[in-house]
């Protein structure tokens, strides 16, 4: 055949073409050679001479399709409502395939003629679309005609039947064979517009989805009130979750996937949002009884409605708060620190698990748990008294780290210590904890009471991880002082050997940095060193100043101890005692009896220390006295008849009894002072950097910088005032709400 344009007889060619088109659109048998001929005919018409007949072809084809769809519609409607869905579905299946073939037959017309006159994509997307005024490709034309001639006239009837079909499915009364038909019909509303670049779901949404959603709403509204009347709330929730599940399957079965979310929202609206008051009303009881299944269901339902979950969250928060407060305030008996920490840990563990299992580990509920724990741990029974938790936690750690933790394996101790960090994180007054902890650590280190140095170090590292280097700096320094001291003692002994000095006793020293240890210089009381110790002390000072010139050593004799061998008794004893006790006993080296005033003159101890240590020696029967009450003239004499089953022993240290309440208050006062200094330093640092800052920004920055405690606004304000008074900062001249740094 020739591709050259030639004169053609339109009518003749059209008749043939129309015949073949009928075959194609009805999926009849069209032989290959006929198809090829018609394909060429269309080409010939499009390029016809003297003028192309493409437009005429297009118009004829259009009216052909018009007529075809019209006759299909008559067929579809022939059986009335009875077979409407089925017939429509069948006609659509055939037509949609047929039009697809037809589209291919008209390939030349589509590509060469229609595409040229088409608007560009950009024009369609951004410009006004006047689709009706332009020619469409044959496939699209066919679909458009279907929409106008088939769907539009039948839409009400179809909708009614579709809704009815789905309704039957909802009440479990569906005709199974109809399911595919319903799906197919609904699909046709989408497919018929699928070629569009924009708004291709409009038809589906308008003629089907909107009324469907409305019907769905109506249905579930009734359903919800029916269920509520018939069942308890627990059963109601079960049913609802089941219904939601079914409905979601139904959506997948029948609808376009964009509809599922909307349907779910509709259902949730009527099942949950409409009955929030009832659900919220039941919430408290369920939480109180910790009904896991109910809570799980409630969570699933409430989660779907914005803000509805808040009630559940606050109820859970209150519940945990009340329960733990009750537990904590009810603690009685021995070992309150362990009881407190362990019961809080149990509560924390229990509810963390519950939230994970019942509430899918929801962050908001985890937040509620945090709030509740933090509330209880920082709770003060009496607002005038400081919170006890920091102290209790420090004591708990002390108990675990001390030698005496009975019957616990190392790994068990380690485990409990790492658990205690959970509580630590909730504590507001971390600096108070630090004060207590460092004091107890100091005691353990100095008196060699630590179970293991590894455990000590591990604990300090955990605290560092939780609260930063600054926080554990002093603890670290204490720790290293002890290990450095060991080395130092070795060097000292070496030095003694090299210098040929014999101090006559075994002697070892801890050198502790004054700034790092919670050992006040104020505790240093007057004391004249016994002759026997003097040489060691002087030698060590010489050695130390030789090695580190410029450092000042202060001897904390009240923290020292010594071992004394007693040879004047029936058998020799080795007794460990405090330095002051030892100094008293050493006086009896040359005298068997001395008066109190003689002892006092020699040692120069203050009266309180003096009597305390004398009494401790009397009490353990190393020393006898001639009167019950001590006075200057009381005679003290060695008990030459002392005996003890053990030959190596430690006598009771004459410890100053500390009043725990007083200790707590002192600590809090000390912490308070530290806080003021900390805040003032922070303010000066910030102002130095910023030069000028408004009041609120300054407060904000200070709050951001305090990690180890939560300062009150009023405390920050007072620190600002103190700094204004000390002229570190001033108010800017023109504003009362702004400060500037005074260089």
């Amino acid at each position, binding site marked *: 055949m020739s591709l050259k344009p030639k004169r053609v007889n339109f009518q003749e060619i059209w008749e043939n073409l129309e015949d073949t088109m009928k075959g194609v659109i009805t999926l009849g048998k069209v032989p290959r050679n006929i198809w090829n001929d018609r394909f060429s005919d269309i080409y010939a018409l499009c390029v016809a001479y003297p003028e192309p007949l493409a437009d005429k072809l297009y118009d004829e084809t259009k009216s052909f399709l018009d007529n075809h769809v019209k006759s299909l519609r008559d067929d579809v409607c022939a059986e009335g409502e009875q077979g409407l869905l089925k017939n429509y579905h069948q006609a659509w299946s055939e037509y949609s395939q047929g039009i697809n073939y037809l589209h291919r037959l008209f390939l030349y017309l589509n590509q060469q003629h229609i595409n040229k006159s088409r608007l560009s994509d950009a024009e369609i997307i951004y410009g006004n679309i006047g689709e009706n005024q332009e020619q469409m490709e044959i496939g699209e034309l066919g679909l458009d005609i279907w929409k106008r001639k088939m769907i539009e006239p039948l839409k009400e009837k179809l909708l009614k039947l579709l809704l009815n079909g789905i309704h039957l499915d909802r009440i479990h009364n569906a005709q199974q064979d109809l399911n595919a038909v319903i799906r197919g019909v609904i699909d046709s509303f989408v497919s018929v517009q699928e070629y569009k670049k924009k708004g291709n779901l409009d038809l589906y949404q308008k003629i089907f989805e909107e009324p469907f959603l409305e019907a769905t709403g109506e249905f579930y509204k009734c359903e919800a009130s029916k269920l509520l009347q018939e069942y308890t709330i627990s059963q109601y929730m079960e049913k609802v979750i089941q219904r939601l599940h079914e409905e979601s399957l139904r959506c997948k079965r029948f609808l376009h996937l964009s509809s599922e979310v909307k349907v779910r929202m509709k259902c949730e609206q009527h099942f949950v949002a409409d009955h929030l008051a009832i659900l919220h009303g039941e919430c408290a009881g369920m939480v109180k009884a910790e009904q896991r299944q109910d809570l799980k269901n409630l969570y699933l339902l409430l989660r779907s409605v914005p803000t509805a979950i808040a009630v559940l969250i606050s109820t859970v928060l209150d519940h945990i708060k009340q329960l733990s407060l009750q537990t904590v305030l009810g603690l009685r008996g021995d070992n309150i620190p362990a009881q407190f920490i362990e019961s809080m840990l149990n509560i924390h563990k229990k509810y963390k698990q519950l939230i994970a299992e019942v509430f899918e580990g929801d962050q908001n509920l985890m937040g509620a748990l945090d709030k509740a724990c933090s509330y209880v741990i920082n709770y003060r029974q009496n607002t005038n008294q400081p919170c006890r938790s920091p102290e209790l936690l420090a004591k708990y750690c002390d108990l675990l780290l001390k030698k005496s933790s009975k019957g616990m394996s190392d790994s068990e101790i380690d485990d409990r210590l790492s658990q205690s960090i959970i509580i630590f994180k909730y504590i507001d007054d971390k600096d108070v904890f630090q004060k207590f902890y460092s004091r107890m650590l100091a005691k353990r280190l100095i008196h060699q009471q630590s179970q293991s140095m590894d455990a000590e170090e591990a604990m300090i590292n955990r605290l560092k991880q939780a609260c930063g280097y600054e926080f554990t700096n002093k603890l670290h320094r204490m720790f290293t002082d002890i290990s450095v001291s060991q080395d130092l003692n070795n060097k000292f002994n070496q030095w003694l050997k090299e210098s040929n000095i014999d101090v006559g006793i075994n002697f070892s020293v801890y050198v502790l940095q004054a700034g790092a240890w919670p050992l006040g210089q104020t505790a240093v009381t007057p004391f004249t060193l016994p002759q026997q110790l003097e040489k060691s002390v002087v030698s060590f000072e010489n050695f130390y100043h030789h090695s580190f010139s410029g450092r000042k050593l202060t001897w904390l004799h009240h923290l020292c101890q010594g071992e004394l061998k007693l040879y004047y008794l029936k058998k020799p004893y080795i007794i460990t005692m405090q330095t002051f006790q030892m100094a008293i006993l050493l006086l009896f080296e040359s005298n068997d009896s001395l008066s109190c005033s003689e002892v006092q003159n020699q040692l120069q101890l203050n009266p309180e220390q003096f009597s305390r240590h004398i009494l401790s020696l009397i009490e353990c029967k190393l020393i006898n006295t001639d009167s019950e009450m001590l006075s200057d003239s009381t005679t003290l004499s060695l008990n030459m008849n002392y005996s003890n089953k053990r030959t190596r022993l430690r006598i009771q240290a004459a410890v100053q009894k500390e009043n725990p309440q007083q200790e707590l208050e002192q600590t809090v006062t000390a912490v308070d002072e530290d806080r003021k200094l900390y805040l003032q330093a922070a303010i000066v640092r910030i102002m130095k950097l910023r030069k000028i800052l408004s009041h609120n920004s300054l407060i904000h920055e200070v709050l951001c910088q305090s990690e180890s405690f939560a300062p009150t*606004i009023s405390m920050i304000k*007072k620190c600002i005032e103190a700094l204004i008074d000390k002229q570190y900062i001033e108010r800017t001249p023109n504003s*009362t709400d702004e400060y500037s740094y005074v260089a």
Partner: protein
Amino acid sequence: GSIRSTFYPRIPVISRNNTLSNDGLKKEKTVSEAKINNLFDSYRDPAEEQILTEGIERLCSDLHLSPDEFKVLVLAWKLDAQQMCRFTREEFVNGLKSLHTDSIRGIQVKLPEIVNILAQDAEQFKSLYRFTFKFGLDANQRILPSDMAICLWKLVFTVREPPILSRWLTFLECHPHIRGIPRDTWNMFLNFAESIGNDLSTYDDTEAWPSIFDDFVEFENDKTNQNVSIINAKDSVCNSDMIPMTE
């Protein structure tokens, strides 16, 4: 009306000068330093180059004033006196020169005029107010003891008394643990009193007010709140930190 009252304080000063110059130019121009020095000598302490308590009492009585009167404070302000109960020769001579007067009569005429100005002019009053704090301090003091502060507040607010003043002073009297008033608190009280008027509900404790105002407002609010007894309110204020007297 308002314009007149705004300009009123300035007009009489100018016109007064005019009348003076009309009366006799010499009188205005020839404020005699010698005369002032003589006046100073007549009051000064025999042993010092200063007018001390006794001299001030005589000066006041010659001015027909009592020493604890507002006008005496105003005079001290105009003389820029560094300390209470003491005028140095320098302060006295320079001060009277700046007042353009060299006689008791002259001072008597000037003081009421200045009081008038103070009553009208916020800036002038602020200067007097700030001066008063420094004036009240003893040598080496940085914080004004509360009892002195209360007296000085009463005195300085002889003019322009803010509506909140009496409640504020009652608050201070009820809380003897507030032992002193730092300069910043003193200065800010004027801003506080001006901004608050008589309505404490407009107070915003997130602004940069010294914390003692927070306590004051809380105290006043507790007092008006029927549910909270005054005793409790006092307790809560007493727990707050004291202002240190010395550093």
